[in-house]
């Protein structure tokens, strides 16, 4: 939480090594999971295929209950990858936290506001892109004055609040979870064996709860992304 980070400046942009490493490891884990579950596909599914199809049905359910007006196949893929990636990112920090020489190298990428803002930006941009694609640029702009022209400022502000709440909700939940994990770990090492014995069950309970929070937040993020996309696809 109060770790220092290594930064790399490249092409005029600043990269946080911990974020980039954690992101790419989460992505690789998601890919390994999905890849290993999708071997030997059959009409009569085996255990692995069943699990994968269950996950796909789950995210398809999220997508279909929100985006109604088109065969939402591409959104299905987006929702599936988004859910798995955020879920994996949330759990990553619960399992691995690597600090070398005071610098953090591996943690939950979603415990950083920049990363969650990146994800939220992607969802919001996707929503606006499909809004423009469906109604044309004029129609898309005129949608801001619906249902009343008076509501234009509220609609504009809503776009920013959507973006901020979407990203900061995820960041806040995961960051708070990690802070508490760190604090409990510090308690464990502060008073020797007694506090260690006390801290272990508490840490376990909080880790279990964090797994739950991570799953819930992934679900919420995916659902809200789909809600924002579907809002841009319909006329009020």
């Amino acid at each position: 939480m109060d770790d220092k980070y290594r930064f790399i400046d490249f092409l005029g942009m600043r990269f946080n090594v911990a974020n980039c490493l954690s992101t790419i490891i989460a992505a690789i884990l998601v890919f390994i999971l999905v890849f290993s579950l999708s071997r030997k596909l059959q009409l009569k599914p085996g255990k692995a295929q069943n699990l994968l199809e269950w996950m796909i049905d789950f995210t398809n359910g999220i997508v279909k209950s929100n985006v109604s007006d088109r065969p939402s196949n591409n959104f299905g893929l987006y929702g599936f990858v988004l859910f798995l990636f955020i879920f994996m990112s949330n759990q990553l920090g619960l399992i691995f936290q690597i600090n070398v020489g005071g610098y953090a190298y591996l943690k939950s990428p979603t415990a950083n506001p920049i990363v969650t803002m990146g994800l939220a930006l992607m969802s919001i941009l996707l929503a606006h892109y499909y809004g423009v694609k469906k109604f044309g640029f004029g129609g898309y702009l005129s949608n801001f004055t619906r249902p009343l022209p008076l509501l234009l400022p509220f609609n504009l502000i809503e776009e920013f609040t959507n973006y901020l709440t979407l990203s900061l909700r995820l960041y806040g939940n995961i960051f708070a979870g990690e802070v508490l994990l760190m604090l409990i770990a510090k308690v464990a090492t502060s008073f020797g064996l007694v506090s260690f014995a006390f801290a272990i069950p508490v840490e376990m309970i909080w880790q279990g709860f964090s797994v739950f929070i991570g799953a819930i937040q992934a679900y919420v993020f995916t659902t809200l992304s789909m809600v924002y996309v579907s809002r841009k696809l319909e006329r009020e």
Partner: protein
Amino acid sequence: MANLLVLGAGKLALGDMLFVLISFIILTLLVKKFAWGPVTKIMDDRSKKITGDLDYADQERAKAEKLANEREQALQKSRAEAVDIVNKAKENGETQKKGIVDSANDQAEKVRQKAQEDAAKAKEDAMKDAQNDIASISLQIASTVIGKELKADDQSALIDSYIKELTLDNEAK
């Protein structure tokens, strides 16, 4: 952590955002190629197959019901036919039996009639013969009576000879 977000506190790590976007897009493409595409294809195939199988099952059931009805009808028909055949055979047997018995009766009647006729004829012949014999005998008797004097002895001798002749004649017959 908060100073990461404050623009004045140093350079904002916008590269992270780009990195996340790019890695997410690459992840999405990879997942699409290796898992999403094949799995959704398989799921579509399965739902198609299930619909097809259900339709096929409905068709087959309708066919089977039709066949069963047809068989039931055929069975009933063949049962009726069998009863018919048996009845006809019984009738045939009855008529044949009657015919055979009738013809046998006829033949027996014929045989009996013929026998009666034969007997009557034989009797008639015998009568005729007897008449002829009696005539010839009476002629003989007459001739002998005319030829001889009738005496008691002669008469008895005549009667004896006559009877002898009769018996001889009868035996000869």
